[in-house]
């Protein structure tokens, strides 16, 4: 049978149990027997593989899955995996059987068993995996199933939730360290195999385990540490041990199975698995030894302080796991035999004791040691099981635990290092305390007086079968070393060894006996002793601190997230400045470059430019300083105008015209928008900006500082850029020479309408999109109802639903309406239209083009909205329909672009309609050329005018009315 099938079997069981049909058709007993039988069969199969393994030492089976990533489904069976596999299936069968009687509720049992069977599959996959990554996946699966099993009672118990989370947090954290360690190990293995080529990632265990110089790799300390971290967290080593007692909220079968027999030994398994290639390095060996011994001692001390039966067992488990880790750290596999014997002995007695604890919980509804006592009479069978298992734990001759303790002490005694004495002391003290814990289990729970009010209800008999069988094993296994245990160990331990049940009255035996006596003596003084013990360092407290700090750090970092865009900008600009400084190139580049211009002589036009620049600076300062928004906005407009004048001085009238018109438009829009804000609100903002702020000085200085720094950075950067411009060919000359080709005398016009005509066509589409965007943002409630809102017919004052403030706001927006301004407004529009038409017609030979024409007309219209207000402007200009203009403009543009195709020219080709119609000279005498460019300019003008109209209408729409509209539309929703 393929090992893949062995691994898959428990998963299939989990799926089977999860089916609704199973739940409804199979009773609890059937499910129990089925699960137990499956695990027993797997156990039998593994036993059957024994002779084959004896012949071959290692069985490797492989299913190619993902060669590119180094992942295949490969299985690896040797002595160590076989031992773990036997424990998982053997103990598993007993636990599955036990669980059938532990749970009274069938549905609960079913839910539990699904997870437990899933866990069994994951655990089997872990120990049978022949690939590091598959091993890791199984490793994480055990963490997740463990999480679910610990939190099984989470709906009822806060402790279960917390314990589950804690266990997952610690083991997953360790697992993430592990994966990095494994990735590095795999990469290192690849480099060791083929040093010259980067051969990538090696994940196959059988390959890695053949490398004997892996520990010489430069990365070894790092990945060894990471892998050890993963193993320590999983196997509950100090200081990560605290999750294991927390995990005792799990139902007892899970505790017995996961948190004693199998999952907590996963770390030990991986250490044992990798030790052959890792243990040559001191870091690996000493790390295991140190942490293991510390864990052994700490676990034993905590164990005797526990009042919860399962807590005691959990800490005793921690101690034993520490002992096994320490053994694996002994140089040259000296401790491997002792470790494996320890694993067997521990699995036998600790699972039995956990099941005892579960049975007591089931029978007495408490696990508190103080509330138990005198159970010997009520539960005699359980008593004897406990006696045998606990004494095995204490190490009484000739139980299985005795063999384990003998080999442990023997191995440590033969460890020759300066600190051997200390090692022995730690081991003996821990052993004595473990013995004390074992006595307490028997004495406190089963002997003595039964406390009052303790009621016992007899559990079903089959619940005893599992623990009894295990106790029996503990009892007889010592006498079956030769036929059973030794052949198994020979598969795993390469050196020759002997494993006698009784090695004679040597020093180890006396130590062992001394430990038992010391434990008994301690039992007499246990109460004062346990009260005295305090331990300053608690991993749990550290965990809590870490959790608190994580929370704190999250909140602290959150303070940067103020929600104000201006602070975000400061952060972004600050980071950019940092990046530029950090790039370090500023100084190296400026070193050899000129920062200031060489030629400082000036002409009259230069002076004019300087004057305009000064004007810009003054206007910018005024924008910031002026208290009233309208004045500030006008000052802001002056900046643009000054720059426009500079363009004029530089012989660029087209650019200057565009600049000025756009600036005017922007200023007008800003003023309209400011008109929408209630005067009260406006004053409040200004006051809070300029006065009445507690942190006025700090805030002001800070903002000033930031502005100066950013301004300086841009200044220096621009200066360097201007002074060190690389020479490039300019395309300006080409444009000037070829303008005549498109019957134009104006290079700018030619570029816009012809040379880059397609760009312009797309540009007006973009402009339209932008206008629609403004519409979406500002005119939300109105558009929802479909289309433009009609102007309000009724006089504003008489609508009672508007509050006084809103009315005031509307009046305020139209306060510019005087007879004079009305006259000007009416007069300006026709003039603007005439100017626009002129700009379009003569755009080819003079300043101005379609864009400026559109803006000019749009400006005149916006004046109507400013002076007369939204409603009156809409009433008096019924022909002004921005959306229609946009459509019309785009259609003309596209038709004009496509038309040349019909005439056999390219897309947007240049067509001279006047020549084609024979009226070239006629219109030429007016200085006109009727070309495709002209129509294109018309399209641009209409689109721009429409887009501006959309924006103006959206902005000028009274805010209070918008709110009311939304109120109405809300009813529709």
């Amino acid at each position, binding site marked *: 049978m393929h090992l893949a099938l062995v691994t898959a079997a428990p998963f299939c069981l989990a799926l089977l149990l999860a089916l609704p049909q199973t739940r409804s058709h199979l009773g609890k007993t059937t499910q129990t027997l089925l699960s137990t039988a499956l695990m027993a069969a797997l156990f039998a199969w593994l036993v059957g593989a024994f002779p084959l393994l004896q012949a071959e030492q290692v069985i490797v089976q492989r299913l190619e*899955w993902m060669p590119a990533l180094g992942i295949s489904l490969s299985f690896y069976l040797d002595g160590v995996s076989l031992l773990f596999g036997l424990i998982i299936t053997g103990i598993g069968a007993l636990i599955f059987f036990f669980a059938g009687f532990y749970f009274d509720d069938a549905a609960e049992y079913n839910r539990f068993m699904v997870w437990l069977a899933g866990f069994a599959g994951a655990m089997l996959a872990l120990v049978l995996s022949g690939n590091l990554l598959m091993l890791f996946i199984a490793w994480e699966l055990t963490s997740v199933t463990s999480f*679910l099993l610990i939190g099984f009672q989470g709906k009822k118990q806060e402790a279960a939730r917390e314990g589950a989370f804690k266990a997952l947090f610690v083991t997953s954290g360790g697992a*993430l360290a592990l994966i990095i360690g494994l990735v590095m190990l795999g990469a290192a293995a690849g480099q060791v195999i083929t040093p010259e080529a980067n051969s990538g990632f090696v994940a196959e265990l059988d390959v890695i385990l053949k490398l004997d110089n892996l520990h010489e790799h430069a990365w070894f300390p790092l990945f060894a540490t990471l892998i050890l971290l993963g193993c320590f967290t999983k196997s509950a080593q100090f200081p990560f041990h605290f999750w294991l007692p927390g995990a005792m909220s799990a139902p007892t079968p899970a505790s017995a199975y996961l948190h004693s027999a199998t999952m907590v030994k996963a770390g030990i398994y991986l250490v044992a698995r990798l030790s052959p290639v890792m243990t040559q390095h001191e870091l690996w060996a000493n790390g295991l030894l140190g942490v293991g011994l510390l864990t052994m001692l700490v676990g034993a001390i905590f164990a005797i302080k526990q009042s919860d039966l399962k807590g005691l067992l959990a800490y005793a488990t921690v101690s034993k796991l520490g002992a096994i880790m320490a053994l694996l750290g002994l140089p040259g596999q000296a401790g491997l035999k002792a470790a494996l014997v320890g694993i067997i002995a521990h699995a036998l007695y600790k699972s039995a004791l956990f099941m005892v604890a579960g049975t007591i919980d089931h029978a007495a509804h408490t696990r508190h040691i103080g509330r138990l006592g005198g159970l010997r009479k009520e539960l005699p069978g359980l008593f004897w099981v406990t006696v045998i298992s606990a004494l095995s734990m204490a190490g009484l001759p000739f139980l299985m635990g005795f063999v384990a303790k003998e080999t442990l002490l023997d191995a440590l005694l033969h460890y020759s290092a300066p600190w051997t004495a200390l090692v022995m002391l730690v081991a003996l003290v821990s052993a004595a305390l473990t013995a004390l814990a074992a006595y307490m289990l028997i004495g406190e729970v089963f002997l003595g007086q039964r406390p009052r009010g303790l009621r016992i209800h007899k559990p079903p008999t089959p619940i005893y079968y599992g623990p009894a069988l295990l106790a029996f094993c503990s009892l007889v296994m010592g006498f079956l070393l030769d036929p059973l245990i030794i052949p198994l160990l020979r598969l795993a331990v390469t050196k020759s060894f002997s494993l006698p049940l009784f090695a004679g009255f040597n020093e180890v035996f006396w130590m062992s006996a001394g430990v038992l006596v010391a434990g008994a003596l301690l039992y007499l003084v246990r109460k004062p002793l346990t009260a005295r013990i305090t331990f300053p360092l608690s991993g749990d407290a550290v965990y809590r601190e870490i959790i608190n700090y994580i929370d704190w750090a999250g909140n602290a970092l959150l303070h940067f997230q103020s929600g104000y865009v201006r602070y975000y900008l400061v952060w972004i600009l600050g980071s950019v400045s940092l990046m530029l400084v950090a790039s370090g190139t500023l100084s190296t580049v400026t070193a050899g470059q000129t920062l200031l211009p060489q030629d400082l002589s000036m002409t009259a036009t230069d002076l004019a430019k300087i004057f305009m620049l000064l004007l810009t600076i003054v206007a910018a300062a005024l924008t910031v300083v002026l208290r009233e928004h309208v004045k500030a906005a006008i000052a802001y407009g002056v900046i643009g105008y000054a720059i426009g004048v500079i363009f004029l001085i530089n012989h660029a009238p087209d650019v200057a015209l565009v600049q000025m018109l756009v600036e005017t438009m922007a200023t007008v829009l800003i003023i309209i928008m400011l008109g929408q804000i209630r005067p009260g609100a406006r004053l409040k903002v200004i006051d809070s900006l300029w006065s009445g702020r507690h942190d006025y000085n700090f805030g002001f200085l800070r903002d000033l500082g930031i502005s100066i720094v950013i301004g300086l950075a841009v200044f220096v950067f621009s200066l360097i850029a201007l002074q060190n411009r690389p020479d490039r060919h300019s395309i300006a000359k080409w444009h000037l020479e070829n303008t005549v080709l498109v019957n134009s005398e104006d290079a700018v016009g030619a570029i816009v309408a012809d040379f880059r005509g397609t760009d312009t066509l797309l540009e007006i589409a973009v402009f339209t999109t932008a206008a629609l965007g403004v519409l979406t943002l500002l005119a939300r409630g109105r558009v929802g109802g479909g289309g433009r809102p009609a102007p309000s017919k009724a006089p504003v004052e008489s609508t009672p639903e508007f509050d006084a403030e809103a009315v005031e706001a509307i009046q305020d927006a139209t306060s510019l309406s005087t007879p004079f301004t009305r006259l000007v407004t009416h007069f300006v529009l026709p003039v603007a239209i005439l100017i626009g038409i002129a700009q379009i017609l003569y755009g080819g030979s003079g300043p101005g083009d379609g864009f400026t024409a559109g803006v000019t007309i749009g400006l005149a219209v916006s004046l109507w909205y400013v002076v007369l207000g939204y409603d009156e402007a809409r009433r008096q200009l019924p022909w002004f329909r921005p959306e229609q203009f946009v459509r019309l403009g785009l259609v003309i543009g596209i038709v004009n672009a496509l038309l040349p195709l019909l005439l056999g020219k390219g897309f947007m080709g240049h067509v001279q309609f006047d020549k084609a119609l024979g009226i070239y000279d006629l219109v030429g005498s007016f200085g006109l050329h009727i070309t495709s460019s002209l129509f294109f300019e018309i399209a641009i003008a209409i689109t721009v005018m429409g887009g501006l109209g959309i924006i103006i209408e959206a902005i000028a729409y009274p805010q209070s009315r918008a709110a009311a509209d*939304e109120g109405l539309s809300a009813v529709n929703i």
Partner: protein
Amino acid sequence: MFESPTIAEFVTQSNLASTLPGTLLVAWTLLLVLVDLFAGDEREHWTPLGACLGLGVSFVANLFVYAPAADQQTALYGMFIADAFTGFLNIVILVATLLAVLMSRDYLMRAGIHRGEYYILTLLSSAGAMFMVAANDLIVVFVALELLSIPLYILAAFRSIKNDGGELALKSEESGMKYFILGAFSSAFLVFGAALVYGASGTTNIPQILEVAPAVVDAASSATFYLVVGTALLIVGLGFKVAVVPFHMWTPDVYEGAPTPVTALMSVTAKIGGFAALLRILVTALSVLLLVDGGVAAWQTTISIIAALTLVLGNFVAISQRNLKRMLAYSSIAHAGYIMVALAAAGTAGSADSATQGALVYILAYMFTNLGAFAVVMTIERVDGGGGNIDDITGLARSRPLLAMAMTIFMLSLTGIPLTAGFVGKFMVFAAAVQAGLVGLAVIGVLTSVVSAFYYMRVVVNMYLRDSSGELLPALETVYVRWAINIALAGTLIFGIFYPLASNLVSMVSIA
């Protein structure tokens, strides 16, 4: 005489055929505008259906153009490149958009917004992302970025819903405005950076930059300065789009305010676009030329620092979030950090390909998982934005077992637990980082993943291990969202369980 080429000449010369996936989507979208116009009251059915069909058409076109055997080819006079990188990311974008459209169908119905332009803007934005992953020229990067972003600005402001008190919730508008202002700001950086790179190298074409750059660097003149500063500014501009620290500030505000499907969409497509451009610019154009001692690109340190900051901040701040959408927003910052790790790894000579492949697989995994998580959030969230808190998910395992199971798988995938797609992505990214010698960065990545387990598992704990005090949660969602969840779940599991799949898909990718 000055003559333009005819259409036929243009089509052949520019190799328009290889741009079909993107151009077809745009063309289809423009047709959809008309369909929407005439659909009238039926538009709530027809427009999303049309949008899905358009995505399908583009998907099929993509399969034809990027058949595995096809060589890379350029189009539009070298401005557009169609290679395995483009093809793979196109698929990711199309699937992401499909999921977002399915979610939107439900969202718009519940919010009572039946506006066709919603889907049109969604498709246009995705087309922008598709052009961006195919951009072979800085100009195209910029134009595609704007096509990607501008519809998203509008979509972010799309939600006009009243809250419980009957007041209009302005969060959505605020979100759109903030996104727009900061987006415009970052675009300026991008353009400035592109201009400087052009000034230094005399070209905006990415392969051509690669050709001339070594000479520019050797000259050690002002041009070198422009190149380095230009690169830095390009990183800033694109860093904003992918939301990495310190250019991430807008993310939580925008994500929380925007309609949930839009948040889901922009957390994926905008990032894909940004990362694709970053990869192309840094790995293709600027890797070899800025190699300093030891075969490491000069920008690697900067990217590494950004990645580390992003990982730490994104993960830690997510812990403090009670609102699931906001939590996912911060966690999306963190995930950008993991992709940044791959990008940093690509800066080491020789590991560019494996790092790029890692980034792509991560993006794929993140797309399925994150959209799935957002879809689940949609099922419990009310349209006014209420009901999406972590406490509202309590007891979901009892009231909606399948939904809770799906959410659990998404959370496990976001944490990076094996058998989910998230693990495959994280594994490939970390393996690439280790291979590139960035062990420290990989360790930071791992440690912050532990932190992320903290807040992702809190969701699972709340669903499974706590009982809701009150009644069972009602099913708010429609069949469309369920489909979105199913697809996302299938992707998460299929790419997680059969992990050869993802790595085989990207095995042809090479942009270095």
